[in-house]
Every structure is written in structure tokens, then in C-alpha cells.
């Protein structure tokens, strides 16, 4: 696991957006994005700061053989909801929530421009679910303790590299598929 992958993993586990993490250590979110994509590398002092923020031993961050994704703490943790949308007070990994069909939260956003167009993309061919599908929105699961807006803001930063400052809520839905 690369250092960038570790930073991204630990940031998401801590439910921080790239912008929020950047503010904590005095860097722009674009710099965080570059670190996470291994385009550039933070200096030793920053790695020390990150280890403190993530409450992780610095050795784990620097050891390229250490892989968070193979440890039990690697999965995204989501709130389990009741059927009426209220929190149960319990959490579970994303994998378990899907396996058991438990109610959870997701947050999605369309991105438009001033020409009446929507930003779309194709799901990469290496993904397990619907590879090649054209998707007109961005976003994903809401992590435990995170708000819907924080989640969609985080996802936009990760997926398209922008920090959206305002959103209009279109609809709140309850769906089963």
C-alpha cells in the first residue's frame, strides 16, 4: 500500500474531507489530492502531523509492506438506520451492511454548468459493479458520524478534485434495489 493510499484511507476513516484535513495542517486540498494519488510526497514533518491526526503509529504509515486494507479496521464504517431513517445507534462495515441488506445512507450530487449540461463519466472497466455504465452524478456512502452534505463534498473532492461550496437539495429518497 503506497503512502498516498494510506493517507486517503486514514482520512476517510477519520471522516475528514481533503479540505478539512488541509486546513488542519496548512495545505490546500489540491496538495492533499496529489499526496493521495502519489503524485507528490509530504515531507517528514507533515507525515508526523498526519500520524498524530489519524492516531496511527508513524511506522505503519512509512512501512510500505503495511497494508490497512488487509486489516480489520480498513473497511468503511456506516451508520445502520431504522426503516424510518432514524439511526439505530449501531454501525457496521459497508460490506456487512450490503450483505445483510441493512438500511444506510448515501449522498449524491449532479454537477451542471452554465450551458445546460451535466457532468458525466463512465465507470472504470475494472470495477465489479456496472463497469462502463455512464453515470450523471457523483458521490457515495455517508460514513458514520458524517452528514449527507459533508459526505457529498468529500466525494466530489475525491472524484473530480473540486470543493463545492454550495449545493441545492433536490430530493430525499428511500430506495431498495
Amino acid at each position, binding site marked *: 500500500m503506497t503512502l498516498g493510499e494510506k493517507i486517503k484511507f486514514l482520512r476517510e476513516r477519520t471522516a475528514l474531507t481533503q479540505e478539512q484535513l488541509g486546513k488542519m495542517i496548512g495545505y490546500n486540498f*489540491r496538495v492533499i*489530492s496529489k499526496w493521495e*494519488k502519489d503524485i507528490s510526497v509530504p515531507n517528514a514533518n507533515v507525515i508526523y502531523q498526519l500520524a498524530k491526526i489519524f492516531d496511527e503509529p508513524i511506522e505503519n504509515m512509512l512501512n510500505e509492506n503495511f497494508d490497512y486494507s488487509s486489516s480489520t479496521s480498513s473497511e468503511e464504517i456506516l451508520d445502520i*438506520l431504522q426503516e424510518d*431513517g432514524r439511526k439505530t445507534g449501531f454501525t457496521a462495515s459497508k460490506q456487512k451492511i*450490503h*450483505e445483510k*441488506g*441493512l*438500511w*444506510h*445512507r*448515501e*449522498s*449524491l*450530487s*449532479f*454537477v*451542471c*454548468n*452554465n*450551458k*445546460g*449540461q*451535466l*457532468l*458525466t*463519466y*463512465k*465507470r*472504470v*472497466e475494472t*470495477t465489479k459493479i*456496472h463497469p462502463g*455504465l*455512464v453515470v*450523471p*452524478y457523483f458521490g457515495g456512502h455517508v460514513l458514520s458520524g458524517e452528514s*449527507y*452534505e459533508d459526505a*457529498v463534498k468529500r466525494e*466530489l473532492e*475525491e*472524484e*473530480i*478534485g*473540486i470543493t*463545492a461550496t*454550495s*449545493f*441545492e*437539495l*433536490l*430530493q*430525499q*429518497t*428511500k*430506495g*431498495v*434495489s
Partner: protein
Amino acid sequence: MINRRFTNYYITRCDLEIENFNFSEFEIDEPKWIDFDIVYDYVKSNEVYKIKFENENFEEMFKKVEKFLKSTKEN
């Protein structure tokens, strides 16, 4: 596997050209700006989206998307 979810749908505006975004190569392929009508027809006719939107108010949401687009479109 059953996916039971509460979803908030938002819309936000960003007038950047495609090359000015910083897309995640792990998740995003062939990003494009596409006209609303084309996106609407694609989503409405696609089996994956039919399943996804079965229990959600697809038409109402896309009407709101269209209204937002019209309100922000430059003449």
C-alpha cells in the same frame, strides 16, 4: 444482495472545462459534459437505472434538475 438506502440528491454548479478537473483515475473514465436531454433519455432507458429508481421519484427529481439547469443557463 439487497441495497436498502436513504439517498440525498443534490445539484451543484461548476463551469470548469473538463481538462481543469482533477478526476480520480481509479473511479472515473471518459468524463464529459453532456446535454440534459441526452442524459435524461439514457438514464430513463437504461435497465440499471430502472432498477435503481424503481422506488424513487425519478421523474420529479429530473424535473428539478432541468429547472435548476434552466435557472443557471446563460442565454
